């Protein structure tokens, strides 16, 4: 059994930390307050290869595994979740192209993302389609050698800044099974009939772009269909373990960042003639925060390691995602408490961590869905 990181993994972590301290931290408050997508920082991150870390080397990425991607996500999220997500989400949706796309699609879509020239997105949720993905109603109809797409997509990360979206569409409304008849199609944002509307007023991760997409007779060439027609659900299921592990890593990162801020503050802040870190009430909080963070990290790294081994870890990934997102909220909450009044305003990063943490319990399958998955696996109830 091996619990340590390799020298290469430590080097990745250290260099990502260096980047985050210099390029992200000084600007985090500004992008959060203005709800502005951090294009400049994303460009810098692309130069370092952070946006396409998991894209294969032959298509310009670094070819990193789930574990290394988790280390990168943890580190970036520990400095600022909104900007971290803006960077890492630049390649959203590309895993489907990587795994099921043809050579032409990989060259057209993976390479520019790895180079930081294009931003991708994944478009699944709809106004009436959240956890119940099988109710997707965006319709793609074949007309000659084109798909004609109509529908609305909701809560789409990179919606107004993305160049293309891997979109879940219903291609065969008459299909019998609940999960049949759906396909993934790459929809470019510059197609006629494609519009997007930025969603503002989010609780957290406000630097990250979120939008509603409106598709009105958008015509897409048939060669943008990814893999087999009607296979979207089978394709999507392949990535749940990896993407849930990724969100778990985000949660670990938020907890790590909140703990770091709380430790600093507790040692600085003096009351009753000594630093508040001398008080046992604060010490116990810090001890709990650190222990929970470490436990979440171990669940997450184990899930990531299993994904990389090709093991089936549906339960483990859901456990990591549910637990890490829960402790992210817990630890951020305690970090604000330790800061007292100072934690309630945005002079310190904990106010942002507190708001940013909540999303990890919602996206990529809510905590309730994760528990359903865990219980279903425990009770062997099948899909």
């Amino acid at each position, binding site marked *: 059994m091996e619990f340590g990181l390799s*020298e*290469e993994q430590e*080097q990745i972590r250290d*260099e990502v930390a260096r980047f985050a301290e210099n390029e992200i931290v000084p600007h985090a408050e500004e992008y959060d307050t203005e709800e502005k997508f951090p294009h400049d920082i994303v460009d810098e991150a692309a130069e*370092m290869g952070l946006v396409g870390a998991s894209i294969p*080397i032959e298509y310009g990425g*670094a070819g*990193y595994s789930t574990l290394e991607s988790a280390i990168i996500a943890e580190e970036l999220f520990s400095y600022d979740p909104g900007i971290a997500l803006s960077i890492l989400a630049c390649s959203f949706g590309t895993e489907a192209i990587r795994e099921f796309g043809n050579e032409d699609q990989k060259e057209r879509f993976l390479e520019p993302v790895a180079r930081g020239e294009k931003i991708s997105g994944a478009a699944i949720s709809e106004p009436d389609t959240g956890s119940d993905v099988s109710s997707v109603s965006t319709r793609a109809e074949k007309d000659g050698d084109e798909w004609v797409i109509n529908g609305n997509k909701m809560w789409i990360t990179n919606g107004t800044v993305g160049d293309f979206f891997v979109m879940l569409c219903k291609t065969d409304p008459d299909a019998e099974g609940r999960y049949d008849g759906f396909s993934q199609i790459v929809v470019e944002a510059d197609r006629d009939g494609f519009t997007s509307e930025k969603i503002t007023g989010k609780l957290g991760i406000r630097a990250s772009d979120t939008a509603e997409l409106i598709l009105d007779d958008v015509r897409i060439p048939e060669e943008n269909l990814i893999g087999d027609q009607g296979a979207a659900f089978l394709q999507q299921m392949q990535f749940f373990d990896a993407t849930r592990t990724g969100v778990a890593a985000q949660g670990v990162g938020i907890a790590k960042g909140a703990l770091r801020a709380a430790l600093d503050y507790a040692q600085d802040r003096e009351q009753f003639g000594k630093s508040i870190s001398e008080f046992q009430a604060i010490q116990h909080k810090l001890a709990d925060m650190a222990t929970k963070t470490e436990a979440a990290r171990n669940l997450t790294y184990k899930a990531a390691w299993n994904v990389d081994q090709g093991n089936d870890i549906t339960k483990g990934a859901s456990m990591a995602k549910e637990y890490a997102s829960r402790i992210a909220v817990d630890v951020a909450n305690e970090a604000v408490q330790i800061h007292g009044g100072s934690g309630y305003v945005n002079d310190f990063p904990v106010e942002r961590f507190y708001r940013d943490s909540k999303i990890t319990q919602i996206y990529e399958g809510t905590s309730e869905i994760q528990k359903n998955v865990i219980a279903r696996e425990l009770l062997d109830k099948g899909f």
Partner: protein
Amino acid sequence: MKILVTVKEVATVEDEFEIEGTGIADQYLGADLNEWDDYAIEEAVQLQEAGVADEVVTVTIGPEECEQTIRQALAKGADRAVRIWDDSLEDVDLLDVGAKTEILSAVVEEEDPDLVLTGVQAGDDSFGATGVSVAEHLGYQWGAVVNHLEHDFDDAASVRRELEGGVEELTEIELPAVLTIQTGINEPRYASLRGIRQAQRKELDVKALADLGVDESAVDAELELTDMYEPESESDVTTWEGSAEETAGELAELLRDKGVAQ
């Protein structure tokens, strides 16, 4: 053209620390690549990208634990690394300029580069002398505190040097030469993720003093560290709250009062 860059893992210190004997207590110390060396590496890699250099080699004197730091240079584009370590170095408290000169000169003789880049100084012991001392020892030309280097040259380098009092000097330096690189000469890149991956497969050669033909007596220091203390500070600090627009005038006023600006 071949470029040799000397690099060093330096000790970094937390803002708050305690002195123990002639050193800083371990728990307040970290380690990082020397800041000046980061600029020297960047300059060498840029020369390689500009087609002037065809090989960039780094050399360091340090124990195995510093390899992770040294690999940063490989991840940023250096082709291979040499690390010098020896049992006789284990117990040396202060490796002085003379010892470094002997060791690094032996590496330069073996590698035979056209250009040696060093940092102006190391961030921890701050001798600021090693680069020039190596040049003197080898009979190389040298340029100290270089803050600009033209990226097209064959047998002479056009450099801009920082002198005292804000004066700069433009000069041509014949190769082979040692240039000590000042911070700000370029903007050091972050190691890319691909670079970090590739660096794991790059050659990192470890050599002992005997491999270089350097006698162990070379590391006997002529300097002895006798004391370490925090100097009494006579400075005071003025801080202003508010935006740059609101406070710039007050800063200007203060600088004028203190005679720093006119």
